[in-house]
């Protein structure tokens, strides 16, 4: 084993190798490879229907690719269920907000702590010491995230009653509550006004800088992508067409063609 391989392993959080995903006869992803390094913000971009969301769904286990491997923290990941992958501290948000609408902001974010709460059913039923202590400890962590996201004033509000921008923020909060190693954001700024977008950008940058969390995000707003991302991977028609620094990707002829719709 040579030295570059060793350093590569330390540096790389997730390595996606030749992933192919099919739905019946349709190829959603073909032979896509890229990696996500520790503490980087990695943007996945591409035209509508390019397979970006499918890629996130593969990473968090909603879809199982027919071919290819996913390496996480230096180990090849076996086929796992989505809830098992959550335990590896990979958290995500959804393109169309998927919050628990009937529950309060606080409860929603507490579900993000589910993977850390181990007390059994019986102690919970009887509210024995351990279950209570666990609840309090996790509650404290959630409260810190609530402060960080500046949503103290809506802690007890049912999520369904909140405006869209705040719901997006709560969803980010739920993912952060899991203290993820890898955070997957599916269009975190879609449908937001400029002010909301700026707030969201600031939160994403802060999370990345202060906690060192690796972030993979899908975004359509090119300005946002260029500002936020350390590296960008471009997918079109299920294939990777470019991968590199934002500036390189922006000037790549393949990418320009894909976005302008040049015939292949």
């Amino acid at each position, binding site marked *: 084993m040579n030295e570059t391989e060793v350093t590569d392993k330390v540096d790389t959080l997730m390595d996606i190798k030749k992933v192919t995903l099919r739905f019946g006869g349709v190829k959603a992803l073909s032979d896509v490879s890229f990696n996500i390094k520790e503490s980087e913000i990695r943007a996945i971009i591409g035209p509508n229907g390019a397979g970006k969301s499918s890629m996130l769904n593969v990473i968090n286990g909603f879809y199982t690719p027919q071919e290819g491997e996913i390496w996480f923290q230096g180990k090849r990941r076996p086929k796992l269920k989505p809830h098992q992958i959550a335990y590896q501290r990979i958290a995500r948000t959804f393109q169309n907000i998927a919050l628990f609408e009937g529950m309060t902001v606080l409860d929603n974010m507490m*579900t993000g702590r589910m993977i850390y*709460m181990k007390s059994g059913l019986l102690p*919970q039923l009887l509210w024995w010491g351990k279950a209570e202590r666990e609840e309090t400890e996790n509650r404290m962590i959630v409260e810190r995230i609530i402060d960080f996201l500046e949503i103290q004033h809506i802690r007890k509000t049912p999520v369904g009653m909140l405006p869209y921008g705040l719901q997006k923020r709560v969803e980010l909060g739920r993912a952060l509550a899991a203290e993820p190693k890898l955070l997957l954001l599916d269009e975190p700024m879609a449908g937001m006004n400029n002010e909301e977008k700026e707030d969201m950008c600031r939160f994403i940058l802060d999370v990345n800088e202060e906690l060192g969390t690796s972030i993979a995000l899908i975004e359509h707003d090119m300005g946002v992508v260029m500002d936020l991302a350390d590296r960008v991977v471009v997918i079109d028609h299920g294939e990777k067409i470019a991968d590199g620094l934002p500036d390189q990707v922006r000037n790549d002829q393949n990418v320009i063609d894909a976005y302008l719709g040049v015939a292949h």
Partner: protein
Amino acid sequence: MQTLLFALEVSLNGFMTGILYSLVALGFVLIFKASGVFNYAQGVMVLFAALTLVGLQQGIVPFEHLINNLFGTSIHGFGWNMPTLLALLLTLLTMLLLAWLVEKLILKHLVNQNPVILFMATIGLAYFLEGFGDLMWGADVKKLDIGVPMGISDTVESTTYDWFGYGFFIDRLDITASIVAALLVIGLTIFSQYSKTGRALRAVADDHQAALSVGISLRQIWVIVWSIAGLVALIAGIFWGSKSGVQFSLSLVALKALPVLMLGGLTSIPGAIVGGLLIGVGEKLFDFLVGPMIGGATENWFAYVVALVFLLFRPQGLFGEKIIERV
């Protein structure tokens, strides 16, 4: 005045019956919310729980008829009566085991299938469980007595006589059932609001994908809701069984839960409770006030007519979520 007092007594009796309707409806709602399955077998689960309880308590040997016929033996019971508490505990364990088996043998294999297919599977489960219960414990009508107080309450009668000059006839069994049902509902509410698992249950009811993404195992939640539905079925079975004997007709109680669900909404726990009470009181009052004018026996159809009216004018029920389909 006299009519008013009669009506009040009738309402009170209806209220008590309504609580039992609510209990059965609650079992439906719990499972529907968590897994989107309309569990046709809920009524048979009530019967099965009651049968198991009686069977264990009276020391009936499981499958004794079958064994006798196959091997020419003549076993008739163990010859002892099991202590009620132990029988209750074992019945509860049986219901938990049933929940676990349902997940392992049925639900697990039908994940992501059309709800109609899951519904069909529960129809199959209902018929299986009905036959299995008969085979295991015998098909004869059994008397269930686990020491729940029964008979007309003298206290209520004398107190109301002192107040109104007219004594109300209220069965002590109904009073106990009301108290137990109320405690159960309070307990379930506290559990779902303030515990980790309760939070997970509510999360799954709201959004399956999001629940998976935070590390909640759907299959584990299904076992838990089916277990709770089993517990609710057991409690309904105890009171209904004590009232009218344990026999096949017990499973038909579930039919009365259907109008309750139409009224309250399939997805609402408060709806199941309020719906049950409204149907219970409504059918008794209607029979008392209107029944004599139209030849009586209105209790058989009143609930269904109410359900039909609701289906026409408010299909989501009183408390259910309005179904909005994006086009």
